[in-house]
């Protein structure tokens, strides 16, 4: 073997990335990227696109940045209030997720842990592995409810052709949009658009509409990958949250409602 070919081999392997042992669906040391099954997008008995499955999502700790399988929105159109909220945020003073409080909708979708989607004609359910949370969303055309503001908000879905649109309002203002801490207010209106171009993928768009925090809507687009070789696992955030118990991270101080 000649040295220059050895160097090429090294470079090729380094570029592809090499994984630890025998990762499920991603053979050890090969650097081969997982490929989902191919085929047309499945449909339910009633003819709707069926998004059911366990999905690998791109980790999106900062929704302004691009990453593998996700495109960020670089320059957020902050209002003066939004910019002040963003500039004053310090995770060291308490990132609520470190206290195992609910991540909320955007940060749950942003996590690297997979999610399962279950769907019927009436409901669409997110089963997030992160902290074993879920959100069950009516998709039968009913309007939003009038409950108290919540961490995950009040979601309803409707179809626009083969695109499922999930519309969420009535969030509390205790969450952040992403890990780095981009803010939102209780006026957040979140729109999630799902299409399934083929069996193995979902094209996903998250649209942030929050007139108190941003001067206009902005979006973040991603591709989810079907993982029929994965099962959702239990995730108890509270079980061994030493970092909180030992005082290295703080519980955020929320204003009393």
């Amino acid at each position: 073997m000649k040295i220059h070919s050895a160097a090429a081999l090294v470079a090729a392997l380094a570029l592809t990335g090499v994984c630890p042992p025998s990762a499920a669906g991603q053979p050890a040391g090969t650097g081969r990227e997982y490929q989902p099954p191919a085929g047309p997008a499945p449909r339910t008995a009633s003819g709707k696109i069926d998004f059911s499955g366990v999905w690998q999502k791109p980790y999106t700790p900062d929704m302004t940045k691009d990453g593998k399988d996700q495109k960020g929105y670089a320059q957020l159109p902050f209002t003066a209030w939004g910019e002040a909220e963003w500039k004053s945020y310090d995770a060291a003073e308490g990132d609520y997720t470190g206290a195992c409080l609910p991540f909320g909708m955007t940060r749950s979708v942003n996590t690297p842990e997979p999610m399962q989607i279950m769907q019927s004609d009436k409901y669409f359910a997110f089963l997030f592995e992160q902290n074993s949370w879920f959100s069950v969303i009516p998709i039968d055309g009913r309007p939003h409810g009038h409950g108290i503001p919540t961490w995950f908000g009040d979601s309803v879905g409707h179809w626009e052709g083969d695109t499922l649109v999930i519309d969420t309002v009535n969030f509390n203002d205790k969450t952040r949009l992403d890990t780095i801490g981009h803010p939102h207010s209780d006026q957040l209106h979140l729109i999630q658009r799902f299409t399934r171009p083929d069996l193995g993928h979902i094209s996903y768009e998250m649209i942030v509409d929050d007139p108190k925090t941003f001067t206009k809507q902005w979006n973040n687009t991603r591709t989810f990958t079907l993982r029929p070789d994965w099962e959702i696992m239990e995730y108890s955030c509270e079980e061994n949250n030493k970092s909180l118990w030992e005082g290295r991270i703080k519980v955020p101080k929320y204003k009393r409602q």
Partner: protein
Amino acid sequence: MDIAAHTHTRRVIIAIVAGFALAALQPVAAHHSFAAEFDANKPINLKGTVTRIEWANPHIWVYLDVKNDEGVQPWQCEGGPPNTLTRNGWTKDSLKVGDQVTIDGVLAKDGSKTCNARLVKLPDGRSVFAGSSGETQQRQP
């Protein structure tokens, strides 16, 4: 190239590939802000003996005794979430009590003997529990 030289070249290549592979290992994302707890600008290298492993969410923890001039000091280092590590092929038994390990990590901000482990290596060069919760690194799905 004779066989001995060929073998040597292959070993060199494997070593270099392993080096790149370690550099490319994916960190396992935090369930909260990494920067709130750890200081990415304070790297640490620890050599010690594993005394306990906690394989539980939200992160695994590896406890080790580190010998230095002042005697034996107990340290604790955070790893990734067990679910993600399991999907990547690791088990709780990938590391055992009594194993001698070298940990490259970063220190907690509070000054305690706590680190976030970016790399845990055994004496034979194998790494276990690859990745950490460092969100500053690019995560590979």
